[in-house]
């Protein structure tokens, strides 16, 4: 545990413990603040309150069993976590996923991006004192969670994306439901912007707060909206397209101010882009077609086949007892999560259990920028900075 001695004390300064039980730390983040009056001299984040050893647990699970653990890291982006893990295993195996499944994956992670940004916007506005917005944001998020529930049977811990494709065929009537949401969403984003963008208090709290130059952010490893708000148009979906993102048309919103307000504008613009991507994905997803690749021994066979075919039954038994063994080697895959570059590194030794699974979680690395961001700023601005870094502690501590 980080103690008071960590901060350099002078007689004029005082040390304040922010968190781990503090609403504005969005979970169990503890920040030791050394203050001179209301100004922050140093900030020392203290992590690990939510460490659950997910990476170690993965070593004792078969490749398919570990998917359920990935949901629980970034709990605002479970489908994105499923996706990066499955892409990494598919890369190790050299598996191709059917186009239809790829488009459905894109549609779902983009909906997830909107829902994650909605939670961010609602909670951040709450931190800044705009309480009503949280109710609106969570109202819209609820619609997205209902879509996920239809698809996966779960609202949050979906585990819907599986190695080689998807868990299930999309449910009947999903198009109407997603379309209803897409028609509803852009005017709702306009409503949020009407409440906030020109709001003088909102601007006063965010403009010019938490500035870091693009060079500093790159050196600190920051990715995602935080980096794009500093004018660096780096987005994994464009730079290293995965899951057929190269076939989609969308913009990467950037700003140059690199303050909390710019990060807000980037995220709101990203929600609009995501709506565009989901629309395109809906057009691309065909009515009929496979959602899993044909890979006996890796992708579980259809239930019907198991009743009639001996091989299917044997494969099913083997997948769920022994698992499958990718050839020895490593794979590192990155996707663009709502928070930045989410990476998954898997090392296989040729056994049915991974030798090592490591997640490059964007929250963990983006949070490193906090001490530099808040240095010399007011304590109230620290809250704004933690908010606009957009951390999820489940992912920070893993």
């Amino acid at each position, binding site marked *: 545990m980080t103690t008071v001695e960590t901060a350099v004390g002078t007689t004029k300064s005082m040390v304040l413990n922010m968190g781990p039980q503090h609403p504005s730390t969005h979970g169990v983040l503890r920040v030791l603040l050394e203050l001179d009056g209301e100004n922050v001299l140093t900030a020392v984040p203290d*992590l690990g309150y939510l460490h659950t050893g997910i990476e170690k647990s993965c070593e004792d699970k078969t490749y398919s069993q570990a998917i359920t653990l990935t949901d629980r890291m970034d709990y605002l982006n479970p489908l994105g976590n499923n996706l990066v893990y499955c892409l990494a295993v598919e890369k190790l195996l050299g598996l191709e996923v059917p186009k239809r499944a790829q488009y459905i994956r894109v549609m779902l992670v983009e909906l997830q991006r909107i829902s994650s940004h909605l939670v961010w916007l609602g909670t951040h506005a709450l931190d800044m004192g705009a309480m009503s917005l949280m109710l609106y944001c969570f109202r819209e998020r609820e619609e997205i969670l209902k879509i996920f529930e239809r698809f996966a049977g779960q609202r949050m811990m979906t585990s819907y994306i599986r190695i080689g494709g998807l868990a299930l065929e999309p449910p009947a009537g999903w198009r109407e439901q997603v379309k209803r949401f897409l028609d509803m969403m852009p005017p709702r984003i306009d409503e949020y912007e009407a409440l906030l963008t020109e709001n003088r208090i909102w601007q006063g709290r965010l403009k010019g707060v938490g500035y870091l130059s693009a060079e500093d952010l790159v050196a600190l490893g920051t990715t995602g909206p935080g980096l794009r708000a500093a004018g660096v148009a780096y987005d994994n979906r464009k730079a290293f397209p995965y899951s057929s993102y190269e076939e989609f048309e969308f913009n990467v919103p950037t700003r140059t101010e690199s303050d909390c307000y710019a990060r807000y504008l980037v995220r709101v613009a990203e929600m609009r882009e995501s709506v565009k991507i989901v629309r395109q994905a809906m057009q691309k997803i065909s009515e009929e077609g496979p959602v899993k690749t044909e890979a006996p021994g890796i992708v579980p066979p259809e239930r019907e086949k198991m009743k009639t075919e001996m091989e299917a039954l044997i494969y099913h038994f083997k997948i769920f007892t022994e698992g499958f063994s990718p050839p020895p080697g490593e*794979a590192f895959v990155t996707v663009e999560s709502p928070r930045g570059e989410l990476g998954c590194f898997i090392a296989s030794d040729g056994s049915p259990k991974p030798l090592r699974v490591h997640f490059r979680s964007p929250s963990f690395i983006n949070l490193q920028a906090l001490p530099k961001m808040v240095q010399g700023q007011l304590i109230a601005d620290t809250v704004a900075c933690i908010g606009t870094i957009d951390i999820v502690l489940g992912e920070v501590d893993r």
Partner: protein
Amino acid sequence: MTQLAKVNASVVVEQLRGWNAQAVSQVVEYRGETTIVVPKELLRATAQQCRDNPALNFNLLSDATCVDRFPVEPRFELNYHLLSIPRRERVRLRTSVSIQHPVIDSLVPLWPAANWLEREIFDLFGIRFEGHPDLRRILLPDDFEGAPLRRDFPVEGKR
């Protein structure tokens, strides 16, 4: 796509070999990813070359992690994933350290981003980083005994 990756990989290897013939002890190409195996002593210098050489320009340290190959010796394999935002390219630098002397140069002087990544490896694998400004446990409590991500640490924990 794969062909392009191959051409780029040879650029990295060529540039590094041209700078120091000892820097690249092995090049592994697997599933379109390039891994450059670097001698332990040359890790920081090679990483600096990757960052500062304008033809390479790997400006972002994306990830650093460790793989424990127990019982193979040297058992710890350190993987650094570098990313060049302007050139849209990745490369993995790899080096090994042994259990007898689990110490390696820190990359914090090159990328502040390495700070927490190395603290995490120190915390979970017990590898020390020379030149790290603040090498403390990061995820586990300070009084935790052992390095839990080592392969000889039981998954269910020690009781």
